[in-house]
């Protein structure tokens, strides 16, 4: 008997499956087809303006920094300002994401753009978020052809651009958008929900930023 059969056999025996399997199967199929909404905290609900404001507040509360700009054209300048204010080399790593590519990077002659996955030697990575979650100040990042996940973890500084219209009140709303985008039950290889920069409390329970992931997380909210 295979290990699978042995484990399943024990489970079915204990759970009394077989006697009323049709009902059990129907219950499971129903829940998978229509995931229950559950309890969604009030905190993230309200107007779009409230959501964006809360998103920024919550992100700052977990040690991310935030800049708000009116249009995507402003993003390259903000990135360049960020590098200069922290004395970082004028070079950023990013995926070939078309939302990022459409921005006027060429106006900044001295800024080097490196496309593709990170090799672990990048000071700064730039990503575009799929969505934001106001409730916790979280950004959602998806892997894909033009969005290497290594950019989210290997650089010392991570800059994430997010469209204000993509900021939802809660995680459930973002999960629904994922289902709409990829189809039911389908997902990209990696979905990263990122809430602030990397940290560790493993030495005497003192929280220190920059454990293995980026030491700093800067969010640029567009719109």
């Amino acid at each position, binding site marked *: 008997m295979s290990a699978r059969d042995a484990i399943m056999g*024990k489970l079915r025996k204990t759970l009394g499956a077989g006697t009323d399997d049709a009902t059990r199967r129907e219950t499971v199929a129903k829940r998978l087809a229509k995931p229950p909404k*559950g309890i969604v905290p009030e905190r993230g609900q309200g107007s779009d303006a409230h959501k964006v404001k809360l998103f920024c507040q919550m992100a700052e509360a977990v040690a991310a920094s935030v800049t708000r700009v009116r249009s995507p054209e402003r993003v390259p300048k903000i990135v360049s300002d960020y590098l200069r204010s922290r004395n970082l080399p004028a070079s950023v790593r990013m995926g070939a994401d078309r939302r990022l590519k459409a921005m006027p990077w060429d106006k900044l002659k001295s800024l080097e753009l490196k496309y593709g*996955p990170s090799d672990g030697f990048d000071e700064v990575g730039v990503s575009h978020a799929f969505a934001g979650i106001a409730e916790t100040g979280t950004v959602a990042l998806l892997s894909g052809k033009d969005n290497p996940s290594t950019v989210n*973890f290997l650089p010392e500084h991570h800059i994430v651009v997010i469209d204000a219209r993509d900021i939802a009140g809660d995680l459930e709303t973002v*999960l629904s958008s994922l289902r709409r985008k990829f189809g039911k039950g389908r997902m990209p290889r*990696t979905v990263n929900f990122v809430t602030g920069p990397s940290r560790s*409390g493993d*030495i005497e329970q003192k929280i220190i930023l920059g*454990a293995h992931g980026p030491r700093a997380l800067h969010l640029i909210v567009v719109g």
Partner: protein
Amino acid sequence: MEVTSPTFKQNAVHALADAQLQKALGNVRAGFIDKRRKAADALPEFDALRDAARDIKDHTLAHLDLYLEAYEEKVTESGGQVHWAETAEDARRIVLDICRMQNARTVTKGKSMITEEIALNDFLKLAGIKAVETDLGEYIIQLRNEHPSHIIAPAVHVNKDQVEADFRRAHDYLPADRDLTEPETLLDEARRVLRAQYFEAEIGITGANFLVAETGSSVIVTNEGNGDLTQLLPRVHIVVASIEKIVPTLNDVSQILRVLARSATGQDMSVYTTLSTGPRRKGDPDGPEQYHVILLDNGRTSMLGTEFQDMLRCIRCGACMNHCPVYHAVGGHAYGWVYPGPMGAVLTPSLIGIDQGGHLPNASTFCGRCESVCPMRIPLPKMMRHWREREFERGLNPATQRYGLKIWAAFAKRPRLYNFAASMAIPLLALFGGRKKRFSFLPLAGGWTRHRDLPAPESRTFMQQWRERESGKQRAAA
């Protein structure tokens, strides 16, 4: 690993006399409790979410066979491979087979209690494969050749100066005069040393906080980002998870996430919550080429349908040990196996047997704080009582305790005799208690009076006082 649970009492005595440990345990008492309370208080829906989380797991456990089936189908559909393992040994062998197929010499590991449970590192070492722990706490204890003393803060028993000494010993190729006095400099050094390991490893092994039946995803929740680098950079990603990690849908994950981080570290959300589904897709610039999931039973199916089923709801947040006065006093290693604190006291006898772990459920004052903070509302004290009953039934506790209980039972089962004996003994004890109304020595009660005085009883028995109170009430009513 060597099991020392049967000598819990001696372990505890050593722990109480260990000055370094006692200093470190102060951090548990000081940090976790306040942080959790603040985070819970800031979310009005927190208690309702605990109910929801409990109900989700209860529903899942009642349909576990079917959700496992659905999950397996989804993993396969997304290009991953599912392996089933009945025992720790089976799981270890599957990991080794994958390593051999890849000619792997180095594997990196995200923090995972399940690989502690199956003692994977020692096994891989014997097979000539280097397993590198990448979570800072796990890395520290790996250098010290120790096991975690806490399920989310594995090195909570270690002080800063000890970490410095360990790093100087292990990283002897670095300049001897470097400054390692602050936690920041220690973390920086670990970051640099481990960065190279992520790129060297052929295989990355993680656990899972959740396995999602709806999508076939494994979910890990971390703060450092080490788990992500572990599952992202090597050619092969292996997930080791026990079968009760399944949840039906992504929405169910969301409900439980809201209570997980708050209960564990007092965060609203951990820094990185990552969903991994299958291997890298066509055109993806990074990610592993192979994705394996090992579904491990190792005793879970035997807990289902028993009085210990509720324990399968546990999400390993550590809140029970953070609030446990016994854990605060002796730390995690005294418990003698992988899982310490109240959850360990319940889980250990289930997983390694009552003969080995039966002692642990006695390491409780039944104060009930663990249950009061458990995000999954697991009745931990009740289950510890169940284990004590079993221990008694099987005659595993010491003879003095058994005889004592038998004598007490002989009286307790005969109310008249009991009342008579009590009405004789209580006034006598009250008399001998003297003006201080305390005993500093009492025959047969040395275990108590060696460390503190025993208060002398009042001069009348409980039953006498009760009768007087009731008749007083009746008079007042009349």
